[in-house]
């Protein structure tokens, strides 16, 4: 077991190095670099003084060094916890991300809990009462949730909030609280804003998960061991939860590890952009557009790290709940 975990961690490190290299290469593929873009902008505005400082910047950011040297420096620093400096903001990447990580995680965990707490009971109900009115309603709403892109839903809710409810729906705080220190009012203000992204992510997330739970459980309910458990005299509730759901839920553990955990940082990107939320994704998208390479690279490596850790955790969890799975 320990052996297995160590081996997986070693693979994960190798994989991370490869991912970081490939993403570094890809970020470097577009012609030019951050500075050439910057100069274009300044020139368009008629500012010529920057051109003389370009060489200073080039040296400062190490853009004059060969590709491999830059990569090596970045990786070594990364391993020591220094993620480099953002060209765009002229601040360390670590600081910039740090500001947003908390909100991202709060938002994602809130959604995750809502989604799972609702989707599993709904899926179970939907399967146990197959073809009942309740099942039909849940199924219809699920399909709307799956079919409707999150950003479209965000726009609709935004429109509704502004025109009908007459409230400001973007961002996580109202104007007066954005820079304010934490206070009771600020928390309430946060909650007032948080429900919109939470609902959007929940509707789009619940649909798929409910359908998966329903399908898995229907398969399991048809298994002989469910009938055998009932024939042993167990109450319906015990048959469903202890014998059917207990088996049907296993595949969801894989989803939790491989989708939900990386989704904490990366998920809901478009929704975040539409609603102007201070999560990591808008920053990441922006950094890709502006060739802000250390920022972009750090985001990619962080997402990959979460995916790898998530996969490892879900494999361990699966082996823990299902005796048929052995880690070798």
């Amino acid at each position, binding site marked *: 077991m320990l052996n297995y975990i160590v081996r997986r961690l070693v693979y994960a490190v190798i994989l991370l190095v490869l991912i970081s290299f490939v993403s570094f290469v890809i970020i470097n593929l577009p012609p030019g670099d951050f500075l050439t873009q910057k100069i274009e902008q300044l020139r368009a505005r008629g500012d010529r003084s920057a051109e003389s400082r370009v060489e200073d910047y080039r040296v400062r950011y190490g853009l004059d060094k060969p590709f491999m040297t830059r990569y090596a420096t970045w990786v070594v620093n990364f391993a020591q916890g220094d993620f480099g400096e953002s060209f765009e903001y002229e601040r360390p990447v670590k600081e910039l991300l740090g500001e947003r990580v908390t909100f991202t995680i709060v938002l994602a965990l809130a959604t995750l809990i809502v989604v799972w707490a609702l989707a599993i009971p709904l899926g179970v109900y939907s399967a146990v009462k197959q073809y009942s009115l309740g099942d039909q309603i849940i199924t219809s709403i699920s399909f709307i949730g799956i079919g409707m892109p999150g950003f479209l839903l965000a726009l609709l809710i935004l429109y509704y909030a502004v025109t009908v409810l007459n409230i400001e729906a973007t961002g996580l705080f109202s104007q007066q609280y954005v820079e304010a220190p934490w206070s009771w009012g600020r928390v309430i203000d946060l909650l007032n804003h948080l429900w919109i992204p939470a609902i959007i992510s929940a509707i789009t997330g619940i649909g798929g998960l409910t359908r998966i739970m329903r399908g898995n459980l229907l398969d399991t309910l048809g*298994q*002989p*061991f469910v*009938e*055998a*458990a*009932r*024939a*042993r*005299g*167990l*109450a*319906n509730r015990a048959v469903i939860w202890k*014998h059917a759901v*207990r*088996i049907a839920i296993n595949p969801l553990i894989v989803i939790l590890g491989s989708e939900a955990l990386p989704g904490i940082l990366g998920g809901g990107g478009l929704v975040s952009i539409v609603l102007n939320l201070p999560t990591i994704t808008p920053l990441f998208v922006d950094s890709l557009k502006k060739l802000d390479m250390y920022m972009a690279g750090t985001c990619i490596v962080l997402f990959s790290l979460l995916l790898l850790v998530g996969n490892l955790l879900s494999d361990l969890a699966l082996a823990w*709940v*299902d*005796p*048929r799975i052995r880690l070798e």
Partner: protein
Amino acid sequence: MSEPLIEIKDLRVEFNVREGIVKAVDGFNLTINRGETVGVIGESGCGKSVTARAILNMVPKPGKVTSGEILYYRRSKENPSDGQSRTTDVLDLTKLDPDGETIRQVRGGEIGMIFQEPMSSLTPVYSVGTLINEAVSLHRLSPVKRVGAQITETIQTHRRVTKAEGRQIAIEMLRKVGIPKPNERVDSYPHQLSGGQRQRVMIAIALSCEPVMLIADEPTTALDVSIEAQILDIMRELQESSDMAILFITHNLGVVANMAHEIVVMYMGKAVERAKVQDLFYQPQHPYTRSLLQSIPKLGQKKSGERLASIAGSVPDPFHLPPGCVFHPRCPAFMPGRCDTITPQWTQVGDDHWASCLLYEEAGK
């Protein structure tokens, strides 16, 4: 000895599906006496398994018991030692709430069941011991000896068995069904056992609560022939030591000949013949039974080039059952004008030998 335990009277089970209504069981009668083995044989889809599930009031959806009753002569399990205060209630199992307390006590506790698919009848995430324990803790009570304050004799009361006791019972049961090293096997998971061992475990679970009847729904169909013989032996041994009735459902005539005292032949949801095992095999009366027996290959009697006898035609479409006797399109003794118009009645054709065929109704008149 021949005290009835289960009486099935005119049972009808229908499946209401999109294409129409399937009468899976259509006016079926059967009496099972205490300690006796009754075999039910018939082709796939003749309603054997549905009847078994109806006894436990767990007919799968969209099936429904539409009429008839299943009477269960229930002896109180309490105080089996004092003998005199045993009462017998009559319960109609089909009228009970399918998730109610009473039927749940009957299921597993008084009527155990083993299934056709030992490979998938055990929940894969629980160990054998856990599964047996689960059944035992639901149904089995353990006597408590308590010395009264005034009187010196012991008073017996009952309580639920504890986990440790349940584990002991599990080990003991595994030993009884012939699982080697029961002390270790009790912690095995189903996937670590072979098919035969899993069926033994199923039997151990079913018998751990000391039921008065065991329903065995094709328990050996999925097993090798050598394992089949072992499983049948175990069932017979355990039956002898416990005075338990067995309802043995199978399509294997050889198996049922070995196991049952009495045999009921089913065709399209109806009982067509019922007799003691000897009578049925040596003097079959119903043309369907005869055809079934003829279709068993016999060693040494076959001339070269001769084809194995089979029943002409095929099982009718359950949505369009033939009028009159449902077997008439395939029957070698078909009487035009009678069999396709008149529904045959249950007729006595010998000593404890009944058949549902117009051949004998005519003779009786």
